[in-house]
């Protein structure tokens, strides 16, 4: 869009940045951290005590402010050093050439956590772009994990066959779990949100069943735990097992998925059909796109990617699955929904969103062990970010942005319609 050349450089810069969804996300992050700081203040006894003290003696607010800043600062510092890099430690490695694994652990952990998240989020994002709200990604990931674990632990092959076959099994498992809601929606009109939510429970139950009552259960065990994956079916760490760095070859699977998703959405005919269907189902139909086929295929693609995420998670880190696989905080299939929203369903957006969420999660754990601030703070920050990204109007009001480009943002939140 041509701009008025008379406008000052500053005003042009403000204008351009205020139209970028990236800026809105960055501001949402700032707000998230601000809200997080408030939470730290009201939940840390030391801070509250300092403020209470300041009411009794008039000279003390300076002290209370210092305590507050110390605590909030320590919390966020440990979050950063725990998820990205600890500068002194890093400098130490750089100058002495030692302890590299310690310096790289935070980054390695963040990447390890982000790897399956990227894959699952792209699956969810592709479904969103087609106007399909796939809430069942977590169940599909679990199904992928079950199928992949079966191949990984019960069949024995050389690596060049075993690993691809394991990953493929994960994809197929996720597809199978996605196919059922897909068929139900295509042929009976059942709303995919309801069906996929319910189907999550079915798959959890199936997971427990396979781990307790089938040969997948670790022999000689009463607990819900699977056999260990063969070494030939594991996504091994880059730097070898002895380095302690968990970042693994799954990262390349994720990169391949990102490239695939870019090609699929931007360049493939099927991806075009998906996007047309998502943007205007009526026009899609009039243009000869078969809505039923598209719905089923979307669930196959989305479920397949979720399944791949599940097996990448298992094969890259735990090398086995348990009854707690992807439950609770580990439920990447649910986090994927928010990440897809954050990344506006676009592959690169999802990569950044996944890294951000992974860093917050990993950093939150480091913060908890270093300062005692509960891990839930990370969840609070994540939630606030999503809240503000999903309601860009709020961001615009708070930061007085004029004409920020919100249509792209709203598009990302579309998809509830049946």
């Amino acid at each position, binding site marked *: *869009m*041509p*701009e*008025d050349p008379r406008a000052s450089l500053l005003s042009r810069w403000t204008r351009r940045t205020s139209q970028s969804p990236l800026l809105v996300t960055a501001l949402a992050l700032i707000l998230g951290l601000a809200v997080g700081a408030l939470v730290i203040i009201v939940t840390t006894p030391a801070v509250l005590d300092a403020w209470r003290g300041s009411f009794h003696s008039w000279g003390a607010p300076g002290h209370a402010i210092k305590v507050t800043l110390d605590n909030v600062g320590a919390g966020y510092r440990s979050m950063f050093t725990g998820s990205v890099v600890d500068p002194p430690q890093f400098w130490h490695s750089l100058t002495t050439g030692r302890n590299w694994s310690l310096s790289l652990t935070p980054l390695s952990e963040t990447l390890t956590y982000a790897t399956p998240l990227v894959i699952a989020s792209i699956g969810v994002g592709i479904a969103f772009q087609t106007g399909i709200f796939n809430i069942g990604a977590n169940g599909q990931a679990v199904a992928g994990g079950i199928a992949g674990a079966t191949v990984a632990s019960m069949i024995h092959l050389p690596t060049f066959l075993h690993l691809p076959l394991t990953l493929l099994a994960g994809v197929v498992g996720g597809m199978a779990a996605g196919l059922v809601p897909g068929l139900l929606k295509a042929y009976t009109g059942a709303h995919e949100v309801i069906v996929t939510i319910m189907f999550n429970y079915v798959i959890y139950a199936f997971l427990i069943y396979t781990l307790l009552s089938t040969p997948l259960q670790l022999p000689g065990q009463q607990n819900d735990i699977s056999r260990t994956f063969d070494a030939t079916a594991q996504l091994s760490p880059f730097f070898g097992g002895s380095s302690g760095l968990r970042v693994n070859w799954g990262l390349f699977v994720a990169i391949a998925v990102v490239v695939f998703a870019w*090609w699929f959405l931007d*360049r*493939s*005919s*099927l991806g*075009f*059909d998906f*996007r*047309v269907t998502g*943007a*205007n189902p*009526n*026009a*899609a*139909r*009039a*243009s*000869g*796109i*078969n809505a039923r086929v598209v719905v089923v295929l979307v669930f196959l693609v989305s479920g397949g990617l979720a399944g791949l995420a599940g097996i990448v998670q298992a094969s890259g880190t735990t090398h086995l699955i348990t009854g707690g696989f992807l439950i609770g905080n580990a439920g990447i299939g649910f986090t994927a929904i928010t990440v897809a929203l954050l990344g506006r369903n676009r592959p690169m957006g999802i990569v950044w969103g996944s890294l951000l969420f992974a860093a917050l999660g990993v950093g939150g754990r480091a913060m908890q062990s270093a300062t005692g601030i509960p891990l839930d703070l990370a969840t609070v920050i994540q939630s606030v970010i999503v809240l503000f990204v999903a309601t860009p109007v709020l961001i615009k009001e708070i930061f007085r942005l004029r004409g920020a480009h919100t249509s792209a943002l709203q*598009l990302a939140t579309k998809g509830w319609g049946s």
Partner: protein
Amino acid sequence: MTKRFDSLVANDGIDLVVEPGQIHCLLGENGAGKSTLMNVIFGLLRPDEGEMLIDGEPVWFTNSGEAVRRGIGMVHQHFMLVPVFSVAENVVLGFEPTKSFDRLDYAKARDDIRRVSKEFGLEVDPDAIIEELPVGLQQRVEILKALDHDAQLLILDEPTAVLTPQEIDALMTIMRSLADSGKSILFITHKLKEVKEAADVITVIRQGRVVGTAQPTDSEGTLASLMVGREVILTVEKEVRSPGDDVLEIRDLVVRDDRGLPAVNGVSLDVRAGEIMALAGVQGNGQTELVEALAGMRFVESGTITLRGRDITNKTPREILDHGLGHVPEDRHRNGLVLSMSVADNLVLNTPRRAPFARHGSRNLNAVRDNATQVVRDFDIRATSIFEPVSSLSGGNQQKVIVARELSRPLTFFVASQPTRGLDVGSIEYVHRQIVRQRDEGNGVLIVSSELDEVLSLGDRIAVMHQGKITGVVEPTTSRETIGLLMAGVSEEPARA
């Protein structure tokens, strides 16, 4: 007055004077800036430069409520009525008369409406429910509403677009009587015939500027050339051709509408190669459903549709498209375009997999771009870029995108529903010429239109539809009155195929 949207100057130094008791016509193509001007006057948009005087007093409105209080009433192209409320409730909405304890005073509301409608000759039952009224009466309610708020200047934005010929005549009468009683009317349109019929003064707008004022006595040709800046051929130029064999055969077709009622009730119709069959009729008499069934978008209850000897009854849209049917749907936003996607993508919307646009499931974006560049030039689609979303184009250019898409692939049959609805003279002329070209290339063409002028000038034969049946198939030389009677369901001769 000047109004800019980013870099686009929608209104560029517009001067306009409306006298009391005058019907002032604002004539211009789609995208000329008429609606922007009206929205500024009515307080819906803020101008960037300029001033507005009412009775010599400078004013600018920051919202439409202020405009209403200063005696400006607006009837939008799409009505702003609550469908489930009664006429009286709608008219007083926002300015409700109340009795003690904030109770609505329905009696007063009804009396007010009776008084106003009597004064201006606008007969409406105050207790009727809006959604049960025909479009023409709904519009009358909008006018009543403005008058009830004591409007001195009435803005009518494309008021005839949704009306039948009879309703248009009635509207013209109302407008004249309002003007006679001292009200001023700003009448926005792009239809030349109505301008000549109704206007006292005509202001022509082109590309955001006033390009001239004209008198209603000026010829349509003069007006049209002012609007588009060049001479326009108003009657469709077409040579007489001898049509070939039947290409489309519809037999005893029965199709239900969305409510499950039979909308097409035993229609048989043949269209020959090299012939334009124009389907006339008041909207809502089954034309929409007939075309949807033809395009595979609606289930055929019974009967058959045969295209070039092949049965396409209840085939999928894909199969029918591949069999060479070009289709311009009636509702272009709903069925014809993906508004958020680019012009280039919309131009290949139903051929994304056809060579050269894709190979082995991978799209060839260079081919898509080259195609768009070429088509945009050939069809004179005005877009700042082929990559901008089609939603940013004017209505006329959006329609051109659809027509261009359908006509730039090999066809055997072309069907277009309301192909020129909402289009300006330049675009209409263009679309008409394309339709005639299809015929001259030996394709069968079916046109559905509620504009009698269009039907008469385009059709080689005219089929008239009423309540799901064909009431007659006549020659284009038939008088308007005869066709009007057929449209009303009075069959002069037994329906024949």
